[in-house]
């Protein structure tokens, strides 16, 4: 139970209080949406947190250091961005995995690229995006977003 968590939860509870003062109906709807989306995401969250434990215990830090570490430079950046591009799921699932990799010795720019491309590049959703906006847009946008994820990662290296 973290202080951050308690503070955040308190703030949200206050927000719900304010919300219910101005509209009971909307507050109930909010609560229902919150509960439903959490419920729908539960299997994924269970899987991701399960993976975090497996990673920490079974993946040797040397391996992460070797594949995603600073010494591999561009290769680790590409691997981080590539893993993010293939993965789908909400960012809530990306953060625990990213944290595990980071504490095992991964290069922060590679992990930043992993998170950004996790959300903004979608190889799996590409056909869907192409269906909505056309193949040209889907390819251009995902390509640029991937490049941007790598660039943001590199800039992180300068900032941190």
């Amino acid at each position, binding site marked *: 139970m973290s202080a951050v968590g308690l503070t955040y*939860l308190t703030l949200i509870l206050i*927000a719900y209080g304010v919300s219910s003062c101005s509209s009971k109906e909307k507050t109930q709807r909010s609560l229902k949406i*919150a509960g439903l*989306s959490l419920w729908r995401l539960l299997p994924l969250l269970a899987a991701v*947190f399960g993976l975090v434990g497996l990673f920490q215990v079974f993946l040797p830090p040397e391996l992460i250091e070797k594949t995603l570490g600073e010494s591999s430079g561009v290769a680790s950046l590409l691997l981080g961005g590539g893993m993010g591009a293939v993965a789908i799921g909400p960012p809530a699932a990306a953060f625990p995995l990213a944290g595990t990799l980071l504490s095992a010795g991964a290069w922060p720019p590679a992990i*930043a690229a992993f998170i950004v491309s996790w959300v903004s590049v979608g190889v799996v959703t590409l056909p869907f995006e192409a269906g*909505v906006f056309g193949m040209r847009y889907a390819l251009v946008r995902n390509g640029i977003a991937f490049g941007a994820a790598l660039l943001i990662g590199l800039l992180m290296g300068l900032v941190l």
Partner: protein
Amino acid sequence: MSASPSVRTRMLSLLRSQWLLLSVIGLYLWAFHKAPERALEALSVSGRTFGSVILIILSVFGLMGLLQVWISREKVAALLGKEGGWKALVIAAASGTILIGPAYIIFPLLQSIKAQGARWAVITAVLAAYAVKIPMIPLEVQFLGWSFSLSRSLLTILSAIPIGLLVEAIMEWRPSPGGKTLR
């Protein structure tokens, strides 16, 4: 032939939707078979990690519920379709950070914005800023620390508009012998 078709399709859809959970369960079964002690340790690490962020996760979903109800997607869409120029781009980048939902909700929403006359740059800026989730920042901080989370979020937001303009430029660039661009 023993399973009826409906059972089979249900199994298949379960496999397709929960393949990650199923493979993690499979990995654990294998781990418990090979090295029970370490598998148990992995399971307790998982449990402890989850316990340390459960309050944040509950809060994140609570906030997402509020945002979805109080900030209607339709209103954001109407605003983005109507505004032009820099204002639209800034609103796009900002709304990307609070809009929540999986691709199958966001893409049709953006399609309706596009149909209302929004530029490619606006659509793209929403999707680029989408990699920052304001409600989820405490969760990111918990796992990755303040300096990492803040600099990543800031860089992502700042890059949203340039990415939008770049994608728009590529979308509207057509090597035609006569005119320059056509829309």
